[in-house]
């Protein structure tokens, strides 16, 4: 109960702050947009054979991933300004709830930015990602959640280091490889109009990853924010 109350409070707080500043969503979008354009230049070049459509799924997730890293850093910067995190550590409740609240808001902000990026991406790469909207949304949520679980925890880890901007991608990229592979494979199945049953394994893997790391990061978060 305790945990849930803290989680909701943190989530609401982040919603208000984001509504006012729009920092995190704009950061993700403003980075994701030119990256999509650049990918399109690089892979749609006539000399390269214009085969970008075939790996549009992979490029989409890479663009999301790198944009998310910037968003996660911004999001956690809110907690370190004025040392708010220390204020949060004083609460007479489970500190893991703070993690869950941040996870929820990061997930939401990433999703919002991605949903704006998807049509733009679809236009540049001439692919229809929303032909099966239900499946697409499921893949998007599961993949984004996977990046957000470890991303939220590791943004707290890297905030403690001298090379914050370097440490987050350095830690996050190898650790989220399973998420990226699974999300890219799922998207490929979707884009090639193949039956979704082919992606069953990958959806299971994503779900498993998300659940395992949500629990693990929730348990470990208190250790990260101590000092």
């Amino acid at each position, binding site marked *: 109960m305790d945990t849930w109350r803290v989680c909701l409070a943190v989530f*609401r707080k982040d919603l208000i702050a984001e509504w006012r500043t729009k920092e995190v969503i704009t950061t993700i979008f403003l980075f994701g947009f030119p990256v999509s354009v650049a990918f399109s230049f690089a892979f749609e070049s006539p000399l390269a054979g214009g085969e970008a459509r075939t790996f549009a799924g992979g490029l989409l997730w890479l663009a999301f991933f790198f944009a998310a890293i910037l968003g996660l850093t911004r999001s956690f910067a*809110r907690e370190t300004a004025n040392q708010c995190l220390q204020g*949060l550590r004083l609460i*007479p409740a489970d500190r893991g709830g703070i993690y869950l609240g941040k996870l929820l808001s990061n997930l939401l902000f990433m999703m919002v930015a991605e949903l704006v990026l998807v049509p733009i991406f679809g236009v540049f790469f001439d692919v229809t990602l929303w032909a099966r909207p239900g499946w697409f949304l499921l893949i998007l949520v599961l993949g984004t959640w996977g990046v957000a679980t470890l991303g939220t925890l590791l943004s707290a880890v890297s905030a403690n280091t001298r090379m914050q901007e370097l440490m987050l991608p350095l830690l996050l990229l190898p650790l989220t490889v399973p998420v990226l592979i699974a999300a890219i494979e799922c998207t490929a199945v979707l884009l090639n109009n193949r039956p979704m049953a082919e992606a069953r394994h990958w959806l299971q893997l994503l779900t498993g990853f998300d659940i395992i790391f949500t629990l693990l990061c929730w348990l470990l978060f208190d250790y990260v924010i101590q000092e």
Partner: protein
Amino acid sequence: MTPPANPTSPRILLRQVSKFFDRFTALDRLDLAFEPGEFVVVLGRNGAGKTTLLRLLALLQQPSEGELLYDDCAADRLDSAFRRRLGFVGHESFLYDELTVEENLLFYARLYGEPPKRVAEVLQEMALEDRARSLVRNLSRGLKQRLALARAWLHRPALLLLDEPATGLDAPTRERLHAWLAGCHRQGRTVILSSHDLRESLQPATRVLLLEDGRLAFDGPNSPELPRQMQARLQGAPA
């Protein structure tokens, strides 16, 4: 989720407590006891260990060596509910710049399980009602400090820990702060605050500690001639 009706402050005991940060010794084998209902001022120059002491007392840090006991219970074994009994005002405000005064307090009230009406009470008590809808970013240093105090006061803790609360405040504001703290003290709460400046009045304090290089250099009851004695020790040859 209601706070205890009777604000019982814990008895705090430090036995040979040291805190190290690698090569740096912040606190060096402190032996101290704080009885419920004391009003203690911790004096010391910058870097003498005042902040570290208060952060240890606020359970934000653990001692590197020695024992820190609250009512005979080791600090690292206290459950999270114990933190309801303490309020901490740090050097930083712990406030969100992009939220309003009221939103900040509502946020912390939710975290402490306090009802929203408690926020209105605290706003009134701290005379912040007319600024309730201002963004914290736009507040003056004095107002921010008052709001930080309001945040720490939301759950009416029995033990108040304040790290240099008077820094950057003008004389009248400082007076008001001390009067308010004296009020808390009269209700039977323990107040422990740190200061590096003797222009701040020591008047409400019942006990004065002096830290030098992480060691306890003085510990005694407050008296009218104490400020002059301390002045000399605080301003002595710069280290």
